[in-house]
């Protein structure tokens, strides 16, 4: 049974249909990426999985159970955590407070401590900045805080929305290495990226989304060789 299964999901903003019946499967342990242009519906997909948006029709199945439309704080309890588009960090709070908020539903102080150490292990830079107000951090550091904060909730399914957007190439490399390491550590990852090259290199399988529909899917290695992909997303 797939960890996550989207069945014929349609989502609309008023009269505009953002997702036109997409079906996606993510197996436990995988890194799956959704690539596509701006406005293709990538973020909408993630936001629907977390319950921030409600589907019009179709289902979000998590471990076989229909979780479509349940409140976001309950999806967090199920182990679905997201680092949102634009990072969504609390710029007025310190880095530590941001991370503590990530563990909002965690009551066990010992576990919070252990999870903090884990975040520091993935992102040593975050530890250096721990007392700083998050708004004063560089874009790359903020991205690390956003991902670290998602890790604090002990995700089984980690959703990453454009983690490399607007970052310098060197930082992008660090972020993708962290994604590999987080996956090795046990989290299943659904990654949304415009940087199709890096996303395909760091994932097992990929779906290509165009104006709300899946147009291609398959193992990332194969898709990276597909001429249509190379032309449309890899700039060839």
């Amino acid at each position, binding site marked *: 049974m797939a960890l996550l299964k989207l069945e014929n999901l349609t989502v609309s903003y008023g009269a505009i249909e953002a997702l036109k019946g997409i079906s996606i499967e993510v197996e436990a342990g995988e890194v799956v990426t959704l690539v596509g242009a701006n406005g293709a519906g990538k973020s909408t997909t993630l936001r629907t999985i977390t319950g*921030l948006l409600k589907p019009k029709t179709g289902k979000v199945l998590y471990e076989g159970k229909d979780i479509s439309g349940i409140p976001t704080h309950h999806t967090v309890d199920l182990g679905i955590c*997201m680092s*949102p588009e634009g990072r*969504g960090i*609390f710029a007025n709070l310190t880095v530590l407070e941001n991370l503590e*908020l990530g563990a909002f539903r965690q009551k066990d102080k010992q576990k919070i401590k252990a999870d903090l150490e884990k975040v520091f292990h993935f992102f040593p830079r975050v530890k250096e900045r721990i007392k700083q107000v998050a708004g004063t951090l560089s*874009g790359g550091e903020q991205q690390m805080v956003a991902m670290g904060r998602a890790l604090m*909730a002990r995700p089984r399914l980690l959703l990453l929305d454009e983690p490399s957007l607007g970052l310098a190439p060197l930082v992008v490399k660090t972020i993708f290495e962290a994604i590999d390491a987080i996956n090795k550590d046990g989290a299943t990852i659904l990654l949304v990226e415009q940087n199709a090259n890096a996303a395909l290199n760091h994932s097992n399988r990929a779906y290509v989304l165009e104006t709300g529909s899946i147009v291609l899917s398959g193992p990332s290695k194969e898709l990276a060789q597909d001429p249509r992909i190379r032309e449309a997303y890899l700039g060839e």
Partner: protein
Amino acid sequence: MLQTFIQQIINGLALGSIYALIALGYTMVYGVLRLINFAHGDVYMIGAFVGYYAAQKFGIASASGQISFGGALILMMTAMMASASLGVVIERFAYRPVRKYPRLTSLITAIGVSLLLENGGQVLFGADPKFFPILNSAVTYTFGSVTVRLTDIIIVVVSVSLMVLLQTIVLKTKLGKAMRAVSYNLDAAKLMGINTDFIIAFTFALGSALAAAAGILVSLSFPKIDPLIGVLTGLKAFVAAVLGGIGNITGAVLGGFLIGIAETMAAGYLPQSLNSYKDAVAFAILILVLLFKPAGLMGSVAPEKV
């Protein structure tokens, strides 16, 4: 001259702490919902009336309409709890259903709730003024020609204690941290597993309780209450929140004291014939703020990092 000044500062501190208490409710609700809760001044009025009826019901006031400190404290607790519940009910049934619509809808809803409370109050309590019990140990202290009323001291001490308590909740507790997260970014707060509906309701409860405390404190000092006392006081407190920078808790307190002092200064220094213009001071300040510092004294826009 100096005595007038000191006298008006003292009066202004008392009045200002009332505005500050009410302004906190405006600013906190704005913080979490980006909504100007125009019914907030009326929640202050309801607080005063709950106190009035509680005094009768509990038989706290003496036959001559006087109460003790303990009695006043019981009235305040009762009013705070009742108003907190009212705030939660207003949020749940008036604002939450329209939250997904454009902001103008909520604003008009707020005006509707305000009218409902004012006119409903006139139906329920009657339009005639009622007289709140007065503190039987209400005395004044005189220093030279400066007079300090005990009720003013009580107003300032109780208000400041409540503000410190609020600040502790907001800065030191998990709920407070969740409130700050919600006010900064609602969706991101949801992704942390925060039940944002609960936090928003909690924010209304806190703000409404503070407004009720203000209602009781004012009534102990100026015992004539009617269903429209929340209108002007509420608007002035709203100006205080805007002056301080709406959404900013420290700003609301600062704005409250500044508006209070400005108003008493106007009362003290304007010639007798212009004295009734003291009520216009807050609105003159509002116009100046909107012209020259629209974000308010402590309001700021956080820089967005790319």
